[in-house]
């Protein structure tokens, strides 16, 4: 490693999952209080805290504020998120006094299905009463989508998950479009402004003025054809489409050595 001082190392190879996690972590720059979900959000948020957002306060729905996990938590209720945390409270308090009160800046969600307006399904594939695939259900996702000020979504693209119509609306996004969503959110006194970014294994999507997803950045190695073939609708692509900067060596080191040495999320 000593010669790295005189000559930069060649750009490291990385997987698409690694790119997705790194891109999601970077989106957290400047955010203050983040509600951490299970799975990919968990690793992305923990990476952000070690890189772009050291001041980030991690809130876990299990009842933890200000977690400082010494290892990547195996689940959102891992004992490592308790030891050394700032506060550990009942779930009633967490959901009522932190989330519903409007103290959460970012809620980080995954889902099985998403539509063009960022509405999410994590409940069921097929009819509710006779499911083809029974998924975990809401957990806290329904109320996070309503009460976190901003919602970040992280999920892999595929035509089965980026669908024209989701089978069940677990978490409201921009509903039928931005105008309607904004009116309903305001009238109903929701804390949340809805989804603001969707990070996938192919790129980074934000929402345009109509409330629809728009591809703003394409990950290295991904193509627009790939993007289109993994979405069930004709996607909007930014006129100023950017190229997502590849993961840095340090980002990859953190993911591979500290956060996911077993490669559970990054393979």
């Amino acid at each position, binding site marked *: 490693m000593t010669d790295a001082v005189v000559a930069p190392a060649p750009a490291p190879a990385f997987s698409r999952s690694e790119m997705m996690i790194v891109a999601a972590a970077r989106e957290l720059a400047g955010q203050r209080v983040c509600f951490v979900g*299970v*799975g990919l959000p968990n690793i992305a948020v923990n990476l952000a805290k070690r890189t772009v957002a050291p001041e980030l306060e991690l809130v876990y*729905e*299990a*009842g*933890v504020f200000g977690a400082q996990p010494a290892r990547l938590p*195996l*689940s*959102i*209720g*891992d*004992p490592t998120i*308790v*030891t*050394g945390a700032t506060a*550990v*409270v*009942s*779930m*009633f308090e967490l*959901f*009522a006094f932190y*989330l*519903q009160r409007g103290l959460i800046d970012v809620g980080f969600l995954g889902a099985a299905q998403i539509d063009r307006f960022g509405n999410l399904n994590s*409940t069921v594939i097929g009819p*509710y009463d*006779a*499911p*083809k*695939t*029974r*998924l*975990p*259900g*809401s*957990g*806290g*996702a*329904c*109320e996070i989508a*309503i*009460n976190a000020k901003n919602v970040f979504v992280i999920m892999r693209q595929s035509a089965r998950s980026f669908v024209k119509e989701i089978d*069940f*609306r*677990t*978490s*409201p996004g921009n*509903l039928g479009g931005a105008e309607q969503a904004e009116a*309903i959110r305001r009238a*109903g*006194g*929701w*804390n949340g402004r809805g989804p603001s970014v969707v990070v996938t294994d192919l790129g980074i999507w934000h929402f345009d003025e109509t409330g629809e997803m728009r591809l703003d950045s394409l990950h290295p190695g991904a193509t627009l054809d790939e993007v289109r073939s993994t979405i069930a609708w004709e996607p909007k692509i930014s006129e100023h489409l950017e190229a997502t900067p590849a993961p840095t060596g340090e980002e990859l080191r953190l993911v591979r050595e500290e956060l996911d040495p077993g490669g559970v999320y990054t393979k």
Partner: protein
Amino acid sequence: MSTSKVASMHDAVADLVRNGDTVAIEGFTHLIGFSAGHEIIRQRKRDLVLARMTPDLIYDQMIAAGVARKLIFSWLGNPGVGGLNGIRRRIEPASLAPGQVPLEIEEYSHFGMVSRYTAGAAGLPFMPLRSYFETDLPKANPLIRPIRSPFSDETIYAVPPLNPDVTIIHAQRADANGNTQVWGLLGCQKEAAFAADRVIVVVEELVDEAVIRADPNRTIVPGLIVDAVVVDPYGAHPSYVQGAYDRDNRFYLDWDPISRDEAVLQQWLRDWVYDLPDRAAYVEKLGAERIASLKPGSAPSGSVEYGDYR
């Protein structure tokens, strides 16, 4: 002052859990009452309505063992691993055995379940919450109902109280009267216990009343509402007990292939539940080495001063 409520797990479950009961085993990832769930399987209880925010491995096992007719929940999965295959086979029509009755389900969000227990614990006919707006959950569950504020003309949602016949919680320690202390994640155990008609507390350690009284702010459940105290060290395995042992993640990973095959799952139940008399035998079968591998390092809370006032 303190009549002892200490009982064996066998007697506690035999006396307090009845066929047809609504049973809540609560504990959110932390302090999951596996030893109690196994005893319910072993005693072949039937037609239970099982309530739990996260019906993870323990309810997958119980439902696969046939104890339940209905499930009330908010998140159905093997946390950090995947799905719950035993339960999915009772829900997805394609997986049901011929003639098998599907498991009835009643579904909420996490805050909805917490609010149901809170209403039950508080003696309220409903609890209001700002969830469910513009989602399909109220259509899927008619017990999620709109309610209008008498002050602001806002319409939000309400859920009804959930009052289990029996709530079972696992804790670090209690005295013989059932005064129970927990640290680390608190989940909704307090609310689920106050909401219940009967309460079983399972503990890692039975302590003298003086230990409880030395730190009354740590008490989450008073003996007043407790019917039985079961002393079952490692009773929360493969989940964890803050300060005592770690989650046995290997088992969570192992459960996925075990539970994918109904025959393998049933064999597991024979090996680890039906053929064992109690949790002590389970711990012995697990082996001292595996148990030892779960022990964390030390991180003491420190002591605070309450003051002696006379």
